[in-house]
């Protein structure tokens, strides 16, 4: 139990409306330290909702969500922000880099809300850029990078604070297949180095590359594929 980084128990998410939308309908999921998990499902299966709830950006209607050992329902908005600042890293399909900043500062922004001093943030960011293979692109503006490079910067930003878990939402969705393959390789490498990562994707091919796949359909987990021992 000790090495469970993220736990969902009977999580449901209902969006009010007529009729109400059951985006998640009783999801149980455990992600352990060091795991690399793909959450795969067609669009409308509740993937994005699941990512938002796992990332504490949204709250479940009911059920229990624990992140890094904290029961999320006990925490207020400020505590949740703190949890995201220190324990969770995000990678998005649209990268979300700040156009006016260098690659280095974009990565350093991963630590912006931890209260760490700028010098230390940049020091760690330099290391993180090195880890994703962009040490020589450090001072390039985000707008001057290729799509694949941008996503590497975004990944470096997600891992710079060594979070308990990294949540990646369609990380290859805006990339050509070659850059996408590079990103998948990078994710596998970071995982080998010990980072816990959950990748949300609609792409079965990408999901097949990862050791464990959770298949989501209509807000329910349909099947879980685990690596053979």
């Amino acid at each position, binding site marked *: 139990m*000790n090495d469970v980084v993220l736990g969902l128990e009977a999580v449901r998410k209902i969006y009010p409306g007529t009729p109400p939308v059951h985006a998640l309908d009783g999801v149980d999921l455990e992600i352990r330290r060091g795991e690399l998990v793909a959450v795969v499902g067609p669009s409308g299966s509740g993937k*994005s909702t699941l990512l*938002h709830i796992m*990332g504490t*950006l*949204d709250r479940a209607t009911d059920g229990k969500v624990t992140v*890094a*050992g*904290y029961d999320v329902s006990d925490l207020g*908005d*400020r*505590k949740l*922000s*703190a*949890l*995201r*600042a*220190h*324990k*969770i890293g*995000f990678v*998005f399909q*649209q990268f*979300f880099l*700040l*156009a*006016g*900043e260098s690659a280095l500062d974009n990565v350093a*922004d*991963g630590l*912006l*809300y*931890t*209260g760490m*001093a*700028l010098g230390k943030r940049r020091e760690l960011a330099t290391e993180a850029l090195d880890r994703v293979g962009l040490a020589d692109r450090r001072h390039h503006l985000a707008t001057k990078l290729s799509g694949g490079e941008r996503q590497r910067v975004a990944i470096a*930003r997600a891992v710079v604070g060594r979070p308990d878990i990294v949540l990646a939402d369609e990380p290859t969705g805006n990339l050509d297949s070659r850059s996408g393959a590079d990103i998948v390789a990078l994710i596998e490498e970071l995982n080998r180095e010990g980072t816990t990562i959950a990748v949300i994707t609609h792409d079965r091919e990408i999901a097949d590359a990862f050791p464990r796949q959770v298949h989501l359909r209509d807000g329910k987990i349909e099947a879980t594929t685990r690596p053979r021992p």
Partner: protein
Amino acid sequence: MTMTDTIPRSRLAPADALRAAGIGLKTRRLRSFLSALGIMIGIAAMVAVLGLSDSSRSDLLAQLDRLGTNMLRVEAGQGIGLGSAELPVESVAMVSRIGPVETVASVSNTDAKVYRNDLIPSGQTGGLTVKAADLDLLDTLQGQMAQGVFLDEAPADFPVTVLGSVAAQRLGIHDLTRRPAVWLGGDWYPVIGIMDTLDLSPDLDRAALVGYGAADRFLDADGIPTTLYVRTRPEFIDDVRGVMAATVNPEHPDQVEITRPSDALEAREAADSAFTNLFLGLGAVALLVGGVGIANVMVISVLERRGEIGLRRALGATRRHIAIQFLGESLLLAAIGGIGGVVLGAGVTAAYASYRGWAILVPQVAVVGGLVAAVVIGVVAGLYPALRAARVSPTEALRTL
């Protein structure tokens, strides 16, 4: 893992907040510059108006100081039923007997005209008059000679003239080294001096002055004074004014008109300050419009940057951090506008004041007030957009493409 260890709080150091705000503006340079420009123009207008009015006031005070406020001007009253009243011949002597009076000087109108030369048609007087003047007129008016000398004992009885500044210009006399002369009362009069502008008696700027002796001998003038200039000891000026009319013309004190020329200068200043208030009002309107401009730009910015807001929330920013960042941007915009406006306003003041030959005065209240106004506008204009940005839900924000 124990549940007792608590998560460290999300934090945003003030320096980091400022940096984040600065980057926000830097990425949208033109828009930032234009919206700061609105504030800049408003602040510049207010600083310049205050600076110029202070500079001109200080110039006026210096002028009053130099000219003194202890002078009275006495004339025969003109009005219905009075005809062209005259001051009694002995009025100069009478006035000089009033205790606190320091000096008295008189001028007397003549019927003579002055022309550039003898070929000018007699109707083209150029609005110039010829007056007989006392020898201490210049001292009494605290006037200065631009060139040459004033009337003196010896030349006062000879046909020579001293010109006022406007008269000299209209008669084309700029230089006395070639001993110019003017055609005055049917004869050539050498010009021995040109006076500087007389602030206390501008009518003499348009006069050619001759001595009483010369006026009597060559111009057939009656020598009855039309205007007296009286300097008193400053502390008794009101007392002197009180007895003046009865002293000058004991029979008809109501036909004597007494003015204090320095009052006219002060009245001019009062009129100027009415304009100052008007321009200040216009500056305030410009500032208000600038503030609305900033609010508008910030609202648009919040809509455009939902993705960034979502990202920052995912990186651990609290709602407060988001609000602080957007408020910081608006504050920074206004502060840039405010500083630029103060510099521009001070520059305009300096340029115009040195052009007018005034001392350059940019009042501290304008500088501090300008900056404070800018900051207040920044906060007010930024508050609503900042709160809106803080209220954006992170999931909504991240959903935008």
